[in-house]
């Protein structure tokens, strides 16, 4: 019951979402529907022609006279005229839906792009990236055809058979009944064969999901599965699920198939011919109608059952698109970051973080944290993973706004700055190099598109990547991800070159970038050292040794600041010492220090 209700609610939400998405092209769709309606009605023309011509021919036969040629020609002209009209209207309707389709698709994507440009940067986690991918690649595709073409197609599928049936009723109501023929019986049997389908379908979906989940587990986990000799077990699980599913499907499908075959048999061609002609002969003998009319009713009766099935199928596919539409609407409702209308200009580049609190849902990531970064200083955030150092750095780049407290640059709250101003002041180099699928030159000059090749090469040299780029066949015009794939370390250096060119006075960086690629550590390190020169730097640090010379080391623990100061001040601080010990990084001052593992680390800390 509840499952039924939720699925109903889901369907309702889907319909609402479809309506909302369809709003911009509603007038197009209505016009197209009117055109389709008329063209669908005109589909009756050949049947009308059959009745009219049949009457002429029958009279000629009965009176043994030559055919009334002018009437025949007139009827044929009518038929051709109706056909041309239909062709024209159908074409016009199609054109309008196609135009509406393009318009809808374009608008949807534009709106998504606008929403993306205004969303808080923190929104772009892997989960939401997946949503965007699904939204623009699959859902838009699924939804746009159904919204633009769906209403027209559905109308077309319904209107043609319906007007045929109505035509029969117009000829004579008894003839109309004849054209409907055995369909009521068919519907009865059909709905009987579909009894309980709803619940069964849900159960079936669950079984199918299980099969698919076991398959994913088998494939994605294959290395682990093999390494821990679980092939047999996992494979067995899959086999079990597959067999369960196949059994269930069999038990569900076979009675359904038998029953629907029974339902089909009451609308089989021979039976309809039998019923219609048998009934027709009675009506002819009673002088109600003529043979051509009976023939028309018979032909209509033959087309109606398959038309019914087509309609149910179209309605079904329309419902499928519902969930895609819901996802798209969610994307269009992406939260937006507010930008001030009266921006203030910061005086200088010092950073004040005042009593900042921030949580992800229930989990408090930062609580009442205050840090001051003097202009031109280097501040390192240190602490175990999950201690809040990345969150703090992220807030400074306004990936999100703090729940409480404030962050100020040059005395101005981030929220009182325009985005242009903010990112004039702040740039970041994080673990993801964020290289775009365009030329290397454009990637480096992203923030300064007017930069000359000379300038671009200069910063690339500073980032230790110029030689590598020049060695590529297309040098700076190489399109990334198409002409070549750069190694992790090379990507990092392109990102560093980009940041050097952008030349923002405040830099947020993750020290892990320095050892993202053990095979080109030296180059990345030199590039980073170049980048930090002369800037106010906030660094997310992992190796205490690397940031020993920082003006300020902030040791974080569970969203709080546990200690702060210079390395010399912190040497006797327990929090600092435990972080240093855990990270196991050694300051390789002399070769004598090089030994194995932990002991040397302990030694280092105690000696210090």
């Amino acid at each position: 019951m509840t499952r039924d209700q939720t699925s109903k609610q889901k369907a309702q939400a889907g319909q609402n979402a479809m309506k909302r998405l369809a709003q911009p092209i509603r007038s197009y769709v209505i016009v197209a529907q009117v055109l389709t309606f008329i063209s669908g009605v005109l589909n009756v023309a050949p049947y009308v022609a059959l009745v009219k011509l049949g009457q002429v021919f029958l009279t000629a036969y009965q009176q043994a006279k030559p055919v009334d040629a002018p009437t025949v020609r007139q009827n044929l002209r009518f038929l051709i005229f109706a056909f041309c009209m239909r062709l024209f209207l159908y074409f016009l309707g199609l054109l309008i839906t196609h135009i509406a389709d393009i318009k809808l698709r374009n608008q949807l994507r534009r709106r998504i792009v606008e929403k993306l440009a205004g969303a808080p940067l923190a929104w772009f986690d892997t989960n939401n990236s997946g949503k965007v991918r699904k939204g623009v690649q699959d859902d838009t595709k699924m939804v746009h055809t159904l919204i633009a073409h769906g209403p027209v197609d559905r109308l077309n599928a319904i209107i043609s058979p319906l007007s045929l049936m109505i035509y029969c009723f117009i000829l004579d109501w008894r003839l109309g009944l004849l054209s409907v023929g055995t369909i009521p019986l068919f519907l009865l049997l059909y709905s009987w064969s579909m009894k309980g389908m709803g619940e069964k379908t849900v159960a079936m979906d669950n079984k199918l999901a299980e099969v698919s989940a076991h398959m994913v587990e088998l494939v994605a986990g294959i290395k682990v599965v093999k390494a821990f000799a679980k092939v047999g077990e996992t494979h067995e699980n899959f086999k079990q699920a597959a067999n369960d599913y196949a059994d269930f499907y069999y038990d569900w499908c076979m009675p359904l198939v038998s029953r629907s075959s029974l339902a089909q048999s009451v609308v089989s061609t021979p039976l309809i011919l039998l019923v219609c002609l048998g009934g027709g002969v009675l009506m002819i003998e009673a002088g109600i109608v003529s043979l051509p009319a009976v023939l028309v009713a018979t032909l209509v009766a033959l087309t109606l059952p398959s038309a019914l099935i087509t309609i149910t199928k179209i309605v079904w596919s329309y419902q499928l698109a519902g969930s895609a539409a819901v996802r798209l609407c969610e994307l269009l409702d992406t939260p937006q970051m507010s930008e001030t209308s009266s921006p203030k200009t910061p005086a200088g580049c010092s950073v004040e973080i005042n009593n900042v609190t921030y949580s992800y849902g229930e989990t408090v990531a930062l609580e009442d944290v205050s840090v001051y970064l003097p202009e031109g200083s280097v501040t390192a955030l240190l602490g175990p993973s999950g201690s809040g150092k990345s969150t703090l750095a992220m807030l400074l780049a306004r990936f999100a706004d703090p729940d409480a407290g404030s962050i100020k640059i040059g005395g101005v709250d981030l929220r009182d700055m325009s985005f242009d101003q903010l990112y004039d002041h702040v740039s970041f180099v994080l673990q993801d190099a964020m290289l775009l699928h365009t030329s290397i030159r454009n990637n480096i000059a992203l923030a300064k598109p007017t930069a000359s090749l000379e300038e671009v090469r200069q910063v690339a040299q500073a980032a230790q990547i110029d030689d590598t780029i020049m060695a590529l066949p297309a040098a700076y015009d190489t399109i990334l991800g198409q002409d070549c794939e750069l190694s992790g370390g090379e990507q990092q250096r392109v990102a560093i070159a980009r940041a050097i060119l952008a030349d923002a006075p405040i830099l947020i960086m993750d020290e892990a970038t320095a050892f993202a690629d053990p095979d080109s550590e030296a180059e990345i390190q030199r590039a980073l050292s170049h980048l930090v020169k002369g800037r106010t730097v906030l660094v997310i640090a992992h190796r205490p040794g690397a940031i020993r010379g920082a003006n300020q080391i902030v040791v974080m623990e569970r969203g709080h600041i546990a200690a702060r100061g210079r390395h010399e001040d912190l040497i006797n601080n327990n929090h600092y010492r435990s972080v240093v010990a855990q990270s196991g990084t050694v300051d390789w001052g002399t070769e004598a220090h090089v030994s194995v593992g932990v002991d040397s680390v302990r030694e280092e800390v105690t000696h210090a």
Partner: protein
Amino acid sequence: MLRGKAILGLRYKRWLKPEHWQRYKLGLILAGIEGILIGIALVILLPISMSLMTGERSWGLYFTHWLIVLAAIAVIVAAIDYISVRQCYIAGLGFMRHMLLKLGHKIANWPLGAFKADTAGEMSRIVSKEMVDLMESMAHFNKNFLTGVGSSLIVIVGCWAWNRSFGLLVTIAVPTYALIIYIASHCVDRGQKMSEPAEQNLASRIVEFAKYQGALRSAHVGTDYKVLNEAFAASQKYGLKNLIWGSLGNILSGMAAQIIVVSLIVLAGVLAVTGQLMVLQTIVIIGMSLRFITMLEDVSNNLFGIVERGQMLGRLDEILDTDELPEVKSSAPITSPGEIVIENVVFAYNPGQPVIQNVNFVVSQGEMCAIVGPSGCGKTTIMKLIARFYDIDSGSVSVGGQDVRDLTTEKLMEQISMVFQDVYLFDDTLEANVLIGRPDATRAELERVAELAGVSEIVRRLPDGWKTRCGEGGRSLSGGERQRVSIARALLKRAPIVLFDEATSALDAENEVNIVKSMKELKQHSTLLVIAHKLETIQAADKIVVLAENGTVAQIGNHQKLVQDPGPYHGFWMQRYQNAGWKLV
């Protein structure tokens, strides 16, 4: 050729068990007979109408007799349809079960190297949606198609018998209709092919725009991003072209039946007026034309369904035809546990471009061996060859005294633990994921390895502790955290050989001490082969294998010895040594 086979259902033969193939054959033959009977019933429409109008015999029977014939046919058709549909579905369902199991078996016996990043997604799509579609195509479309073809053929024959001119008209109608439909689908395809690349490009541009918002925003690039707008413009441009071709195609296919019907009626009318057709016959002919064209529409719809799904079947053939890793039936015995011998190994991912060339080295039982070398020199490949992700081109890789090709996967994996970069966690609790290493481990053992690998820290931090679910593939943990779980597993398993890639542990620097401790422990019980990056690790190794860029062995020895030689290791060490002392500030 393949298309033809798909249409006749023959392509399913190889994936059906003999008993199901028999049933399927029977079902399809009955479907054909059903079609013939339906065709006969339709043909009866011609004489029965005549006898109704004239009150005389037509084709030898009176109206009422014809009605009795129709009744008889109706009963037989119902019976045949019932049997045919059941046989086809039993075969279809059998096909589905058989295919699911076959795919499962295939996956379980694929070489590890055959798995790509998107394999899981593709497989799950295949076993869920596509398999149902294929089953439907097989049981439903193929059957209806044959029925439709059967009845259409009979109608054509009947028309010829009824009136030659009409027979000719109807016969001409078939290729004409097919031609129009062919041109129509060609137009639609053409339009789509034109716009598809632009559409794809735009979609991936928007995804890129979302993914790299950070970089774009900090560079003041908003919705005015040039590349994105170019993609929008291209999509508009090709969308319009698609519109023209698509409309043309749609109008043709939508009107094809109408064109034929109107032509038939007009021709029949003209023939009747000029006296070339008898008037009564003309009425019936018009009626039959209307029916015949509907039948053609049905046949072509079924055909489209079959052809479309035929492509899925093609992909399935491809998957099931890929080579499995040849595996011996019974494993050779392990003669020297914990020993790795690499002899004259040559290996290439792509023929002609060897990644590993003439590599020779031995790691004895209990030894710790470090592999070092520049990026792309084949360090990871060697590890994968030892775990037999791929088979080598020449030479031999031996584990435990036997060539890996003479060991069953199970036996080989008993010898090996792997701590690699991409760690997979099952969507289960953290506890279950560690216990995979040794399901019968005691609580104390579990706690001990967790402490050692740094998993305890995660357990303490997460609200549900050991019972925290890891999400699909381990999604709810970070890369470093997943690595810790994988180390804990290896500690628990205590395999004679541990293959360890240090690369990602570098990104879990806060946990470095735990990694070092874990490695020390692993070293105590097992032979340890490490792709080493940290100086301590390299220095602690009993043996260092230095690989050159071209995939050959440049030097072998221990640190003390190698660092004094003026070879590549000396340069490598000095470089790394300087890097390790790097200070940002």
